[in-house]
């Protein structure tokens, strides 16, 4: 009898472990191997959510790396007044760009490749704090 119960218990615990895979999205940063000074931005067509996240905050004078991940179609990327066009980012591609903001304020990031009928709306906010 004891042995039977033990197997049920072992089964139950392994079942819980397997169901734990539902939490996979929570480990995004770990699975991306994100570093301290990195910010991950995913690029979707505007209809499918656009920049994710759509707003980032960085510190003046501190160097940050942006990890740009193409999700669905080919996009481009620039931050007006902070960063020139970085070229195309294909779906599945990861592009890492570095920059050090010199003045504080609010800036606009935008897609530079015609990616969908709503391409011109594909924008986001970059806040540079003091």
């Amino acid at each position, binding site marked *: 009898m004891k042995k039977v119960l033990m197997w049920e218990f072992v089964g139950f615990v392994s079942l819980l472990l397997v169901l734990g895979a539902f939490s996979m*999205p929570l480990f995004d940063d770990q699975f991306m191997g994100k570093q301290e000074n990195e910010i991950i931005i995913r690029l979707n067509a505007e209809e499918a959510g656009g920049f994710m996240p759509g707003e980032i905050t960085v510190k003046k004078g501190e160097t940050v790396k942006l990890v740009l991940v193409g*999700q669905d179609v080919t996009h481009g990327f620039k931050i007006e007044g902070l960063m020139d066009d970085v070229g195309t980012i294909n779906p599945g591609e990861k592009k890492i760009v570095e920059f050090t903001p010199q003045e504080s304020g609010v800036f606009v990031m935008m897609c530079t490749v015609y990616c969908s009928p709503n391409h011109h709306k594909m924008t986001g906010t970059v806040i540079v704090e003091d």
Partner: protein
Amino acid sequence: MSKPEKKDIDLLQVKGVGKPLKRILQWRGFHFTFILVNLFVFVIVLTAGFFGNPMGNMNFSIAVVWILWFAAVEFMILFGGRTWCTLCPLPAFGEWTARRKLVGVHKQKRWLSKDKKWPKKLDNMWVSALGFLGISLILPWLVTRPVVTGTLFLLLIVFGFLFALIYSGRFFCHSICPASSYIGYHSNASLFGVRARDKSVCEKHIAKECIRGGPKGYGCPWKLYPGGHEDNTYCGQCYECLKSCPMDNMTIKLRRPSTIVRELTNVAVKAKGKYDEAWMGFTRFTLAIFYELVFFGPYWFLKDWGNMGVNFGANLPTIGLLTPTLGGFQNWLMWVLIVAGVALLAYPAAFYGFSWLAKKAAKDKTKPTKQVFLSFSYALVPYGLFLWLAFAITILMVNWAYPLTAFSDPMGWGWDLLGMKFAWSPIVPDLIPYLQAPLFLIGLTFAIVVTYNIALKLFGSHKKAVRATTVMTVLHVATALIFVWIIMG
């Protein structure tokens, strides 16, 4: 006159393989362990389907389910019958809950289930077969929109659970699950079969633990009499009978082609009123072409119609992208009419016409055309299966990179967990037709041989059988040619 039949291979008595295999199958943790592994995969399917990258080919749910799993099931059918059903996690929650056990055996009286008898009207594969057709009608969505795939599997799990709490055993698997019907139907052309070693032992053994259950195993959850198995249609290969049988009389048979033909012929000749199975055959057979067209076809407008005018992939947060336009919806209705019309009406009508002609050609007056039609339809068991194998090979060779990459990056978010990133690069695409052709031909030959054997049993003479078979062969060859013609564009 008949030669003594050569025996099939008793897999559990094969030297070196049989003993360990038997120990594994009789181990109570076997079923649970395999289900658990696949449950893990399906948990990822659900998570990625709802929250992963909206682009289908970069999302685990699409890449693994509609490329890897879908193709793998066809091969499992050929080599292992309902092996997928052995591994399937979808009904597991219901089964565990009802039994109140994950691994061990529990008395049925104390199950957490109403244990109702199955409704007679649903004791067939109609719901399942029409479900398969229904799913195929939204195929262009299903195979490109993660959230649609996620929702489908979530629904299957929920229904599998609910049905287990109401009806006793695997009612959901037997009659509802949309994959069950085609897996079971084609399993009759499988090399594999769970059978009794010696039927006379079963006949004399009144206790029949394989039906009632015993201390080591449950009674057949699919409500069959395992000892009497002569076909594969509804054997879910859970191997409970291998555990419960105290006479050690249940085993796995590797069936020779001659056995497959003989057993299938018997199924076909005995099929009275089994229109569900006939229409399953028609649906699967004709859908092979539509799947081929949706995945690889040259007609873009057809995919467009199926898409309801929607151009985006979608996950749960972006599910609004799936709102169809009115025009798109109208186009989709055309697609539905074409697919369902061919599968449910046009092809069966042609089949009926040819069966009538075959009967005429055989100059038979004893058998009703209905019966001839029903019996001959079982030629589609092997024919359809080999058509789908041809499709499965193509899809694997063309799209293999997606599922492998998806294991490394299930959400399609740019992870690389296993260090596997592959670009889409079909393997020897020029050679694919040369792999498909032999499968087509094997299927066709198989169909003709089965038709002849059925005709021989129905009409009683070689001469009549040859005539009837010739007529049916015209149909089978003609459909093959139409297929090739359509695929080539």
